[in-house]
């Protein structure tokens, strides 16, 4: 993965930049020692590492503003960081950058149950937002699988999803307002505890902009009351295509499950060996979860089971209790860990129209044979968000590159059938050079022209999202102007 050559004139000014940052931040908030900056050398895309020049961990919006103003004046690139759980390299540093981590900004500012919102500092973790409101029966809906660790700041930057977004939507559908600091230090308030923008929907633009438009320091989030209960049904099929047809029929029947998860045979075998959840050995497995009171759940699971029966399932297991539910979810929740036991893996998240599922799974199988790399598919079937896990051996020379090539082919296939490169992880560096596959030059120009407005010098997370050749002029204008 190519990254821009670090700017030696910036690195030469490190002492001066550090000194200026120390003037506006507490002593423990500026990390410049080469050993200590290593802690920030990568995110969850661990194949790529580069220690930053400096890392800062401010406590307040004002401090974030001061840091950005100084970096703007000094022409230093800034890479914002939430908890560093990005699978796409969204928080990967460059050697000439300042990493701006919001981890110490984790306070709850306001909870309002009557108006159903919470205001938090964005370093707060996703799960601890729910933690702050659950004693009143409320929760924050988007639930990325890293929710124990990932920060709201990163959720907003990547527009994170989760298993339950078929019903509750992703981050952008649950975000009501932000405080954002622009690269020149200006603090902007967008939205608030009311619905929809009066003018242009900047909030929608900010969410998912991968930390390239500004640093979001506070957020107003929609909270909901928890459902009375939730239970899944597990359905096994001996054919992927039939499983896909069943998903489509469930959706068409007017039942709107909160989640529809799909696992294929390689994934079932791996998780069964690892977690012993008692899954049937079959080609495809669906876990369909619905919510409501006990009677409502029974009714909906009954409808789903009736639909499934028309497709001759090899297994149909309706959960009747919390224990049975936990057992059904156990395998799915350990799927990534199970695959990780076998080998290193790369997780993609291309999204496809549900109707293309059988074709795409067949093609992935053929590619797997061609590349000689095993792949397991776990997948949010209700919304077409795939998660092929390609196994490779990081210690075997050339295997990572082979795996990346395979992954790129899968993502191209997702676009070819009417889908997209990434459904919830973001582009980062991982899918940056594939953006041409999904978007024409004009489409990318339109997106980049938005960054021109928010960050004219292209200092915020500059080497992400857009192919380096597409953004080169803009980034080098920045260098020349310095």
């Amino acid at each position: 993965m190519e990254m821009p050559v670090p700017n030696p004139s910036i690195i030469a000014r490190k002492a001066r930049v550090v000194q200026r940052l120390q003037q506006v931040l507490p002593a423990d908030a500026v990390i410049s020692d080469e050993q200590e900056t290593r802690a920030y050398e990568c995110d969850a895309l661990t194949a790529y590492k580069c220690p930053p020049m400096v890392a800062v961990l401010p406590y307040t919006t004002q401090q974030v503003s001061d840091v950005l103003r100084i970096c703007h004046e000094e022409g230093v690139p800034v890479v914002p960081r939430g908890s560093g759980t990005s699978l796409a390299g969204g928080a990967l540093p460059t050697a000439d950058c300042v990493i701006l981590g919001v981890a110490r900004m984790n306070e709850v500012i306001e909870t309002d149950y009557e108006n159903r919102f919470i205001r938090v500092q964005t370093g707060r973790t996703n799960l601890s937002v729910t933690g702050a409101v659950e004693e009143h029966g409320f929760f924050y809906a988007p639930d990325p699988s890293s929710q124990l660790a990932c920060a709201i700041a990163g959720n907003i930057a990547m527009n994170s999803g989760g298993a339950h977004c078929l019903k509750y939507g992703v981050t952008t559908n649950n975000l009501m307002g932000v405080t954002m600091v622009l690269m020149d230090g200006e603090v902007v308030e967008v939205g608030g505890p009311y619905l929809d923008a009066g003018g242009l929907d900047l909030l929608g633009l900010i969410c998912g902009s991968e930390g390239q438009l500004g640093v979001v320091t506070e957020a107003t989030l929609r909270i909901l009351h928890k459902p009375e209960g939730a239970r899944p049904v597990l359905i096994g099929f001996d054919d992927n295509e039939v499983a896909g047809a069943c998903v489509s029929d469930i959706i068409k029947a007017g039942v709107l499950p909160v989640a529809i998860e799909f696992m294929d045979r390689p994934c079932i075998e791996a998780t069964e060996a690892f977690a012993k959840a008692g899954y049937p050995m079959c080609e495809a497995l669906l876990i369909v979860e619905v919510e409501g009171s006990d009677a409502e759940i029974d009714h909906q699971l009954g409808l789903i089971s009736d639909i499934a029966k028309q497709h001759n399932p090899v297994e149909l297991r309706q959960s009747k209790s919390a224990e049975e539910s936990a057992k059904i979810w156990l395998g799915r929740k350990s799927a990534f860990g199970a695959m990780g036991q076998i080998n290193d893996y790369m997780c993609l998240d291309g999204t496809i129209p549900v109707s293309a599922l059988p074709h795409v799974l067949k093609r992935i199988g053929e590619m797997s044979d061609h590349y000689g790399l095993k792949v397991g598919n776990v997948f949010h079937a209700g919304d077409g968000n795939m998660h092929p896990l390609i196994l490779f051996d990081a210690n075997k020379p050339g295997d990572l590159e082979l795996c990346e090539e395979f992954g790129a082919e899968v993502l191209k296939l997702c676009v070819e059938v009417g889908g997209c490169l990434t459904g919830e992880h973001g582009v980062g560096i991982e899918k940056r050079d594939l953006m041409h596959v999904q978007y024409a030059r004009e489409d990318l120009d339109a997106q980049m022209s938005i960054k021109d407005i928010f960050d004219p010098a292209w200092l915020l997370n500059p080497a992400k999202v857009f192919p380096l050749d597409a953004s080169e002029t803009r980034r080098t204008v920045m260098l020349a102007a310095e």
Partner: protein
Amino acid sequence: MMDITSEDALVDAIKGAGTPLAVQGGGTRGVPKAGTVLSVAGLSGITLYEPGALTLVAQAGTPVADIEAALAQENQRLAFEPMDHRGLLGTTGSPTIGGVMAANVSGPRRISVGAARDFLLGVRFVDGQGVVIKNGGRVMKNVTGYDLVKVMAGSYGSLGVLSEVSMKVLPRPETQAALVLHGLDDAAAVRAMAAALGSPFEVTGAAHDRACKKTMLRIEGFETSVLYRLGRLRDLLGNMGAEITVSDEHQTAEAWTATRDVAVFAAAKGDVWRVSCKPSDGPSLAARSQAEAWLYDWAGGLIWLRCAAGHDLRQKLGAFAGHATLVRADSETKARLGVFHPENAGVARLTSALRAKFDPKGLFNAGLMEHAA
């Protein structure tokens, strides 16, 4: 007036335009016109509909009625419940899906399922230099690049002219009913609606008609589930001191169409404003509005106010968390007060830079969204 029937023709029309264009779908939403009318109503047709994937793609000029008819055949719907402005504004014509999205038109169900913008998955549009730009796609989860889809929704044609939209649709529930609380004042009604929305019983509409002191809470779903939740809500709200009745499926459908379209103001004279606010602020805002009449939707977070012609509602409300949009007034009043709420300085600078970038010649609905300084 220019009638556009293809995206290519749209590109040519914009490239050839030297003076401002008034971008129009069905022309039913009372958007003030300045310049030559550019109508995309002829850019019509559903291009793809996959009921099993809950997605529909249509050209921007496709009548909403055509889309709703196609969806009804598969027992699906546009869940965000777009308002029909014709009754309130006295306009004629056929609302288009492009118009719905360009104005981010959402109805009572916005509080539970989201706004039009939340259902818009992808767009094709032509910017002010005649460049065709696509963004998003036709899948429900898509974080590939910046989300221009959201910013196009509610941009009123000021950044570009939509040529095609791709949307998420949802199943139509088996039935619906509503719990109606009688006799509550504004503050009590907003408290009752907050309690209902803060329950697990999935209320999909919460409105209060102040004139007849009726507070309506809508429940949708399978029949047994609707009955169950009506019962639980009735228990929950039993201590409000209100008489409680239940409206059946047919009455509920009628009442919510009327709420969606603000039917009570259709025949009455005066300007109509739409205020989005924090729900619990609703009653105090309404009280200081000096409006002649008002009603609440979105559990109090949306107030429709009818005021004397020319009344400067924003001045009466003063500073508050939210925004006030002037929906119905004569063109002099709309020009004087501005249709849209003034933005804070930071947001205003960014939005005006966005307009300058996407529409450098100032062709599209010039000045509509900008507030007279």
